[in-house]
């Protein structure tokens, strides 16, 4: 069956079609997480920002004047919500941990090791500019192509390549000491 376009999904979601909105969530929850993580730098807050952003987007779907460009419109919401969340950092304290954050996988030892690695990665990413973090995560983590990033973030493809080049260069230095087996075991 032919996959529906973003515009079709947005139109149907405006009428309350749950499956269409669910498909938009499936498509953009991970890119949104990458954006939020780029801005906030903490996984838990990034998740909150993504959830909030989807709620805001659903309430304001009529404001998305060009549904073909839903991705760019939505990721802007994610970026803005993430920045707001940083300003209201105190809200994070005392929030219950959502079920999605429940740790059902690795042993406590490996979890600790992964937590340490994550912290180090986030420290390394902090050395980059916000837009560099967004681009490197969308490219390396989500597998988006240069052209997709350019279209969805609303910037020239050459700029995306340039940001990616400098981000990789900086990360090469920051992550050079990390051993591969830490993450592959």
């Amino acid at each position, binding site marked *: 069956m032919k996959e529906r376009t973003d515009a079709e999904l947005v139109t149907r*979601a405006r*009428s309350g*079609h749950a499956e269409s*909105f669910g498909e938009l969530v499936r498509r953009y929850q991970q890119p949104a997480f990458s954006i939020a993580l780029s801005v906030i730098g903490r996984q838990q807050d990034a*998740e909150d920002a*993504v959830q909030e952003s989807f709620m805001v987007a659903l309430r304001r779907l009529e404001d998305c004047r060009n549904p073909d460009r839903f991705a760019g419109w939505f990721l802007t919401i994610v970026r803005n919500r993430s920045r707001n969340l940083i300003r209201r950092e105190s809200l994070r304290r005392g929030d219950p941990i959502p079920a999605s*954050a429940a740790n059902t996988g690795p042993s406590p030892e490996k979890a600790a090791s992964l937590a340490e690695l994550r912290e180090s990665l986030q420290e390394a990413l902090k050395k980059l500019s916000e837009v560099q973090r967004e681009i490197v995560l969308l490219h*390396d983590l989500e597998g988006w192509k240069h052209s997709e990033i350019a279209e969805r973030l609303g910037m020239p493809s050459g700029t995306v390549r340039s940001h990616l080049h400098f981000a990789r260069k900086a990360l*090469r230095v920051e*992550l050079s000491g990390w051993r591969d087996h830490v993450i592959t075991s």
Partner: protein
Amino acid sequence: MEDEKRIRLLRVLDPAHDCPGYWERFRTEIMDRAAFELARRRDRARESVELVLSGWSRSLIPVALAAAVIAAIMVGSEAVRDSGPGTPLVLEDVLASDFSDEVLETAITGEAHSSSVAFMAFVEGNRP
């Protein structure tokens, strides 16, 4: 550092890296939170359709009635027109027929000359 290695390292930042099914659960949470707004939107969409339909019916019924009245009038006047002479008369036929001179003079110069309908009625009424 190789690109592949960097990508593998960055993947650690994905919450699903050590938590299979994470994103599906995450999506379910969002959908749960979105249920109320989606239901509200469905209700609003249904109300909109009903409003449009009732709006149409309000404006369509008088228009349909007016159209029916106009159609009835037109059909009636057609019937009146069609009830005229079976054989159409042309002036040449009239001149070549056996009408008396008086009748012809009156037909051409008198009141019967005021309209084609009056003329034809007069001629028919005085046919020998």
